[in-house]
């Protein structure tokens, strides 16, 4: 459904834009309907930039992003099918208005002809879909709701449209452990109903919990991608191993990843292609910065 083909984003930096910086460099992957793909990377890896380009919030320098064959085109027709939810639910609401105003804005923009009663029914059933009690959340101000509730309301807002793809950019980073998992379970349920979800995160354990497939980004390029079980169970790229070793675990001591010196995929690197270690499990050149690409 969502398809990224050799996508590049170059920012001009420096005093007069004299230098260029490639935030995203030749990234290709896809998201199917009914699938969660997690996009994992540290800060500066370009993961949010990819999310922004899909949502039409940043221009694309090179390559193409298509949803069902249609290129990204910011506008009502596009946003009817593609929506995003972001990290900070507290700043997504206007504090002087009631939180359910976000639903009214959807109605005004997309369903102006719909009757109030019918709309109200739809809002309530969607709120129940995101595992909230409509009586508890409707008519409240943002400060009266918890972060988890606000985040789920934003997902409900997106669901009111004919949603095909949801870009979830770090949506659980600001939530507490006890509510975070509810939002994740909700995403998993939506996926089972046929929605495609691009789950952008820096937290490997959350991505691992939820996603069918994982894409690991490093400095704007994909270093490893494939089925989540394969990427986390048998990581081939030293960077993925290093990341996994750094994740603190409850029941195991911190381990140090053994540095890999040799690279089996080096010959592919010159052509810029990724090596297919197993069907669907792609790995980039392992020599990190020494790569000739």
């Amino acid at each position, binding site marked *: 459904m969502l398809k990224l083909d050799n996508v590049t984003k170059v920012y001009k930096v420096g005093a007069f834009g004299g230098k260029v910086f490639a935030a995203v460099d030749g990234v290709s992957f896809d998201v199917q309907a009914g699938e969660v793909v997690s996009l994992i990377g*540290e*800060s500066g890896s370009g993961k949010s930039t990819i999310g922004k380009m899909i949502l039409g919030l940043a221009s694309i320098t090179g390559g193409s992003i298509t949803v069902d064959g249609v290129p990204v085109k910011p506008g009502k027709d596009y946003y009817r099918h593609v929506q995003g939810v972001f990290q900070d639910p507290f700043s997504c609401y206007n504090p002087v208005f009631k939180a359910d105003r976000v639903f009214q804005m959807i109605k005004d923009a997309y369903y102006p002809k719909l009757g109030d009663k019918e709309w109200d029914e739809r809002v309530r059933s969607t709120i129940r879909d995101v595992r909230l009690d409509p009586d508890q959340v409707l008519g409240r101000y943002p400060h009266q709701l*918890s*972060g*988890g509730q606000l985040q789920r309301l934003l997902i409900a807002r997106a669901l009111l449209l004919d949603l095909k793809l949801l870009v979830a950019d770090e949506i659980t980073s600001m939530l*507490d*452990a*006890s*509510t*975070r*998992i*509810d939002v*994740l*379970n909700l995403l*998993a349920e939506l996926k089972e109903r046929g929605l495609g979800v691009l789950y952008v995160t*820096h937290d*490997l*354990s*959350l991505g*691992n*919990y*939820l996603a069918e497939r994982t894409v690991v980004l490093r400095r704007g390029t994909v270093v490893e991608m494939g089925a*989540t*079980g394969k990427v*986390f169970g048998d990581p081939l790229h030293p960077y993925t191993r*290093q*990341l*996994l070793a*750094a*994740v*603190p*675990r*409850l*029941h195991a*001591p*911190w381990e140090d990843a053994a540095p890999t010196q040799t690279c089996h995929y080096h010959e592919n690197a010159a052509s810029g292609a990724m090596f297919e270690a197993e069907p669907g499990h792609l790995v980039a050149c392992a020599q990190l910065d020494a790569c000739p690409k």
Partner: protein
Amino acid sequence: MSLQVNDLRVYYRTLKGDVKALDGVSFSMEDGEILGLAGESGCGKTTLGKSLIRMDGRMRHMGGTVELDGRELPIGDDRRMNDFRFREVSLIPQYSMSAMNPTRKIGRMVRELLRSRGATLDLDELESRLSLVELPHAVLDRYPIELSGGMKQRMVMVISTLLDPSLLIADEVTSALDVSTQKAVARALIGFRDAGFVKSMIFVTHDLALTSHIADTIMVMYAGKLAEKAPATAIVKKPRHPYTKLLLDSLPEVGVRYTEKRLAGIAGSPPSLLDPPAGCRFRSRCPIAGEECVQEPPMAEIEPNHFVACWKA
């Protein structure tokens, strides 16, 4: 015994009344101990950290005492606390990004800071500490903006501990960092304790998995009170308080998949601290709450060094 906190009460003054952010907290810390302080947002963990070093204008000390190395800390008196800050009690703030003066080179800033405290800069000592956290000595000639987030965090760590404080409060120091930098910063903290730069440390975080790697003892707070305090392994392997159990169960670990094991969050939300309910504060969300929970459970030592505030534990 390095730190002894007795029945500490700190309230926030608001227009609606007092928010009882810390409501009778008592605990003690040994020399050389790293205490991990965990809990959800709004449970009072940051308030506890702040009240040990500097209360902001809205906070009021309502009762209880804090003793550090046998001397009572005048935590309610902002002026008198100045004698203790930086020398005896020091802090690593959460946002080290904004903790350093952006208009000074770091070396000059450190020198000015020490002069203002009446101490002189021991350059050799500073450089040996920089190498301990794997920072090049050249950082002293740079401006804070030239350092990455993890480097700034480590630089602030070095600065905060320059006068070898007895107690160091590390408030969410790794929350804004990537996993690999987080690991380096966490290990540097342990290294500081081992090298004797700080006697004991309170490590405030919401990440239980990370705390379990750093801390010797973990203290779990809920709604302004202590829920459980035990050695780190005991908290992770044999938690006794229902809140700790549920919190641990809601943590996704690498290897746990949605399709194989469905994790659950904790239903409901913490009570308002403006007018907290009587009895156990976790009662309304607790799956095993019973009639006795209307009474407030005392903090009981059910095993050596394992304290739990729950009737059912």
